[in-house]
Structure formats: structure tokens, C-alpha cells
């Protein structure tokens, strides 16, 4: 076992609190905003996102291209450039606000406590360095190992990620490995210093389905062994359905639904989440079955639509949806948040069936349907 503690050398500048209480969150992101100044205007890529991750658990962040999920993951890591980027909000990780740290301090956190697995291992790995050297780099820096210790550890790490004959492979270059093997190397690098949180941004996009299953299984095994928290960012709800404890669905820079995985699938409230689920081709469906595609595309984040941002593509949109922005709220179960005026309840829309007459102001009483009794619009509103 490669441990962060109990190794000699490099003393950490911070003492990250050990979170003994498993109910206390490891990561707390609060009202995070990230915008980019561009020639066309300000792109609000992440627009008020709050989430928490408990130690040892997996959070899935799901959304289409352009939903802001990658910018969110980089904002949490503190990996964004400073030029033309407007940031606000806080990211508390084990008691420290990462947004307040200096670059030099962040470098002590990256790799050691918080690490990242990138989508494209070919561009994320250094093509002219042997893979062994790329693994030992953080071992020597963060854990203060000497060369021999680090080399031995690198071999063990490669073995633990399922790379055959690791003694030889440490001297290989990335181009000598297949896509799946490169992703295993990325995982070995990310896990080298036994971080408490690993951010995996589309770790299997671009890989074959067979390799995807291998990589996700491996990540799950290592996570259980090491009691790491994992944030799995993906566009495919199928990938996180069996692996995440909690899922955050993003749309146009915002969280539109957030719930424990089972709750999310059993009682999807947000029509967008439902639409994402329905667009996946299922093996159990007969061939030739028409897929339920979501019409249109995510909105332009420079001029997002008024009201609910999903309304232009939503099958259940009402006047109210186009006029006022639904807050992230709960109904029934306290850990199930959603941003929708007329949420689905067990697959049925609570939107009034007839085309809505008169433009319901935001203070208008909610529609009277049987399901609506379960929805309390006033409950625990989070300001967007």
C-alpha cells in the first residue's frame, strides 16, 4: 500500500484535516461561477453551482457538450487560467478553500490530495518521457521518496492498474501503449500519492466499450481499496448509473437535478434528465426502435434564454417556464434537488395538460394535479 502518511521527507505546508466522520463532506462547492470574456461577450460557463462530495463516495456529473461540466471540474481543481476568466464562489476541500490558495500552494494539493484523470491520455501524457518517470515525478515531489523507492513504487502502481510486466513497461513511452493502457497509466499517475479525491473527466470517452468497462471497473476497485472519493464527469448516464452514489445533472452551466443515483433513476423530476436517459439506445429494446432524441442544442451561454434554460427544448414547457427561472428546490425527499416548475413525478408531468391560458406570474399558485401535492414549491429554495 502506498500511503501519503508514514513516508518520510517533504513536509506538507498545510495540514489537511482528516475527516473521520464519514457524514462530513470532503468537498463542498458553494455557488461557483466561472465566466470567460470573449470577443462576442461573456460566456457564463458555470453559473452558480453548489455540490458536496463525501469521503469515499462517487459523484457523477452528467451533461451534454457545452453544459459546463468540464469547466466546472477544472474550476474545482483550480486549473483555469486567470486571464479573461471571472470566478466567484468557494471550493472547500478538507477544510481549506482552494479558491483562496496561491498557485504554489495549489501545486502542493494537486496530485497529493486531489488529482485528475483527463479525457485524452495521449495528449495528457508527456510523449517524450518514459511512463515510469511520469509516475515517479509526483512520488518524489510530494512524498519525498528517493529514486529507488519511487521506481519500485511506480512498478507496483503499474501492476495495481493491471499493466502486464510492469518492470519492463516503466521504460516505455506513451506511444507504445494502446489507448486503454495509456488510460491505465493516467490512473496510476493520478493515484500515485493516494489522493483523497480523484476527478475523472470523461475518462473513457474515445475508448472502446470493452475497454471502457475495464477502466471503470478498475477505477471502482481502486476506489474501494483506498477509500477515495471520485467525481466522474460524463455525457453518458449509462456510465454513472451503476457506479455513482450521487448524480448531478448539468444544463447550460447550472445544476438542474441532483439526487442519489437510485432516487434519480426511480423518480426523475427534471424533463432534461429523463430526455438524456431516453436518448440512450438500449440493448433490451428491439432493433429499429426509434430513439427519443432531444431536439435542438444546448443554448448559447452568452445569451441564455429567459426563464428555464431548457424550456426551448422541453416537451412540457409552459409560459411560466419561458418567463421565470425555476430555482433549485426539493420536494418530498430532502436530498433530491431539481430546477423545474412542472417536474415529472414517476414519469408523469405535473404541467397542466391544456395550453396554459394567461401568463402565470411566478407567484401564481402551482397547477392542481394529484401529483402536485408531493411538490412543495416553497421548500428549501437555493438561490441560483
Amino acid at each position, binding site marked *: 500500500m502506498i500511503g501519503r502518511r508514514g513516508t518520510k521527507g517533504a513536509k506538507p505546508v498545510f495540514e489537511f484535516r482528516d475527516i473521520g466522520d464519514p457524514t462530513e463532506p470532503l468537498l463542498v462547492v458553494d455557488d461557483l461561477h466561472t465566466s470567460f470574456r470573449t470577443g462576442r461577450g461573456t460566456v457564463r460557463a458555470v453559473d452558480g453551482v453548489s455540490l458536496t462530495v463525501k469521503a469515499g463516495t462517487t459523484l457523477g456529473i452528467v451533461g451534454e457538450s457545452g453544459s459546463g461540466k468540464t469547466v466546472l471540474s477544472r474550476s474545482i481543481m483550480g486549473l483555469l487560467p486567470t486571464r479573461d476568466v471571472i470566478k466567484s464562489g468557494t471550493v472547500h476541500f478538507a477544510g481549506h478553500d482552494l479558491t483562496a490558495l496561491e498557485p504554489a500552494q495549489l501545486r502542493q494539493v494537486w496530485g497529493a490530495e486531489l488529482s485528475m484523470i483527463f479525457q485524452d491520455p495521449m495528449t495528457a501524457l508527456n510523449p517524450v518521457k518514459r511512463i515510469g518517470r511520469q509516475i515517479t515525478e509526483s512520488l518524489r515531489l510530494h512524498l519525498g521518496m528517493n529514486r529507488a523507492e519511487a521506481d519500485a513504487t511506480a512498478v507496483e502502481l503499474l501492476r495495481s492498474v493491471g499493466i502486464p510486466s510492469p518492470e519492463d513497461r516503466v521504460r516505455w513511452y506513451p506511444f507504445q501503449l494502446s489507448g486503454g493502457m495509456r488510460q491505465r497509466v493516467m490512473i496510476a499517475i493520478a493515484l500515485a500519492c493516494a489522493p483523497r479525491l480523484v476527478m475523472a473527466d470523461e475518462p473513457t470517452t474515445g475508448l472502446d*466499450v470493452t475497454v471502457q468497462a475495464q477502466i471503470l471497473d478498475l477505477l471502482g476497485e481502486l476506489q474501494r481499496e483506498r477509500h477515495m472519493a471520485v467525481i466522474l464527469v460524463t*455525457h453518458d448516464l449509462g456510465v454513472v448509473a451503476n457506479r455513482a452514489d450521487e448524480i448531478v445533472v448539468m444544463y447550460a452551466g447550472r445544476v438542474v437535478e441532483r439526487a442519489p443515483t437510485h432516487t434519480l*433513476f426511480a423518480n426523475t423530476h427534471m424533463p432534461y434528465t429523463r430526455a438524456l436517459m431516453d436518448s440512450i*439506445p438500449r440493448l433490451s429494446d428491439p432493433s429499429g426502435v426509434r430513439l427519443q432524441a432531444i431536439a435542438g442544442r444546448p443554448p448559447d451561454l452568452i445569451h441564455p434564454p429567459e426563464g428555464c434554460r431548457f424550456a426551448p427544448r422541453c416537451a412540457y414547457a409552459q409560459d411560466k417556464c419561458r418567463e421565470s427561472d425555476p430555482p433549485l428546490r426539493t420536494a418530498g425527499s430532502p436530498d433530491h434537488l431539481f430546477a423545474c416548475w412542472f417536474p415529472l413525478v414517476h414519469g408523469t408531468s405535473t404541467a397542466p395538460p391544456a395550453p396554459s391560458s394567461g401568463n402565470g406570474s411566478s407567484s401564481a399558485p402551482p397547477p392542481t394535479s394529484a401529483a402536485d401535492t408531493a411538490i412543495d414549491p416553497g421548500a428549501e429554495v437555493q438561490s441560483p
Partner: protein
Amino acid sequence: MSGVTTDSTVQPRTSGSDVVLSVDHLVVEFRSGKQRVQAVSDISFQVRKGETLGLVGESGCGKSTTGRALVQVQPPTSGSVNYLGQNLGALSHRQLRKVRTKIQMIFQDPISSLNPRRRVKDIVAEPLVIWGRGTKAERALRVHTMLEAVGIDPDTAGDRRPQEFSGGQCQRISIARALMADPDLLICDEPVSALDVSVQAQILNLLADLKARFGLTMVFIAHDLAVVKNVSDRVAVMYLGKLVELAGSDDLYRSAAHPYTEALLASIPEPDPEHVSTHKALAGELPSPLDPPSGCRFRTRCPYATQLCGEEEPPLREVAPGHQVACHFPLVGDRAGTPDQAVPAG
């Protein structure tokens, strides 16, 4: 063909067995230094009019090379590709060019398969310009119709360039271009694997609509069996240059006979937290095609491999009407989907 136990999906959609494309003992070799690599080794299949044949397998199994050999972009080393009875390999360059207007291809990366410096309407009109078809006005009208057919607004998009579009939109433009010359056969090489699931569904639906509207026959190449199953009438599974299983797509899902097909099915993530995969995910990597395993090429990763599998290459044989498999111990009948009852490893 007779469909006794198989259902209607195995049958071609049109009556009779009018074969559009017939591939016989196709072999494609590449040179790697002094060695020769067989990317495609001796595969045969047929595609009937109006049908969609799915070609599925991992990276490196030879599915894209097969696709390229179908249009002779990659000339076969041996074997033949016959389009409506014509051996494409025997045609002169001039004749081949002419036939190719009827066989069009859509590629994986929609952005790099469009020239970034040209306007969308010129890209789409190109096939007609090359063949000198129609007047300028007629061509413009057809570009307009075709862009509309693929869901791109011709008035706003025509004068823009590919980089102003998303991946899904670029794929729509590629599809419009492929359809301009009025093809019969469309070869789609991983057309949706670079796209988000939501956009993927849009493109798959679009392909189904266009297929019906223009009476197309399709070969659909992809690595995701769930996607392939959705669009295909029949599915051919490839492994390391070999065809290992060929069956109607619903049959293939219900009773996969090859252990590799079973593994492919197992690795598809189901969007259902209650779903527990009964199959084991595939271990290991594709062996090097430079030095393929003896006997059955899948035996190094097969949980049921025996000594026989290493000694003798299993031929492709029929295990049920319309269902062919290349395995000594196919998972059929009671054993389908229950690996523990299959022949144990020797």
C-alpha cells in the same frame, strides 16, 4: 433465405434476395517493415437491398479497413467486393469512379472530414460539380433540399464554414454531401462515436429517416453494440480480422453464440442502477495482428477456451437459420447467456 426460428428482422425488408453487395473471401494486408499484417483475413458476407448490416468490433479488429475496402479506397489484397454483381476490383479507374457515386461513405470525425476553408453549400454541392450534373440553379436547389432533409437550415448555414458548427451538425452536413450523388449504398464508419448520447440519438434517427426516404442500403460500422443493434437488421461481429458471428440483430442479443459477442454485450453500460450484468467484462487486450494466436484468435481472452481452440481454427458455420458463428463451443440453446454451463476451460 428461410426464417424458421428467426423473426422478421433477419429477413430482408424487400422480398426476394436481391443482393446489393457481396464480399467474398476478402483479405486486406498491410506491410509493417518486413512483416505483413492481415487487417482483414478472409471474410465473406452479403448485404441485401434495403437492409442495414452492422459491423461491430473493438479498435483494431479490421472493421474500418473492411469499410474502406468496400469502396476500394483500400484495395483488397485478395478476394472480391461485388456491387450488384460487378467485381469492383476488376473495374478500370474510370469505371470505378462512376460506380462509387452509388456507394458513398460517412466518416467518424465529422469535423475533419469537411474542408474547413469551404462554405457548407459548396461542400455539399461538390459531388454534383464533379460529375457536371445539373445547372448551377438546379444544384443550388438540390443543396437546399438536401440540407433541409438533414435538418440544417440552408438559408443561414449555406454560407458558413464547418468550424462554425458543432460535431453533430457537421455530421449532418457530411450526410447531406454523401446523399447528393443519389447513392444506393451508404457506408457509415463510426458515424456517431464522437458524439454525445443526445446528439447520437438525433443522428441515428436521421439516418433511419433518410434510409426510408431515399431507399438506401447501409453498412453501419461501430464499436458499440447497443448502437449497432438499434440501426441494423443483421449484425456481423469481427475480431482480429475475422468474422466471428453473423446474425439478425435481435437474435444476436437474445442468443449470442460466440463468447466474444457475449463479452461485447456485457460491456455496454445500461442506464439503470438496478441492472446487474450477468456477464463478465472482457479481460486483456486485443492480441497483436502481427502475430495472431493459433487456432481461434479469441482463445487468449476466452473464458471457455480448450486445447482444441488453440489447435484448430473454427470455421464459420450455421447454428440456426441465418445465424452463423465461428466457435468450436458456441453458446447455443440452453447455454446461451449462462457461461457456467459452457464447456469448462481445459
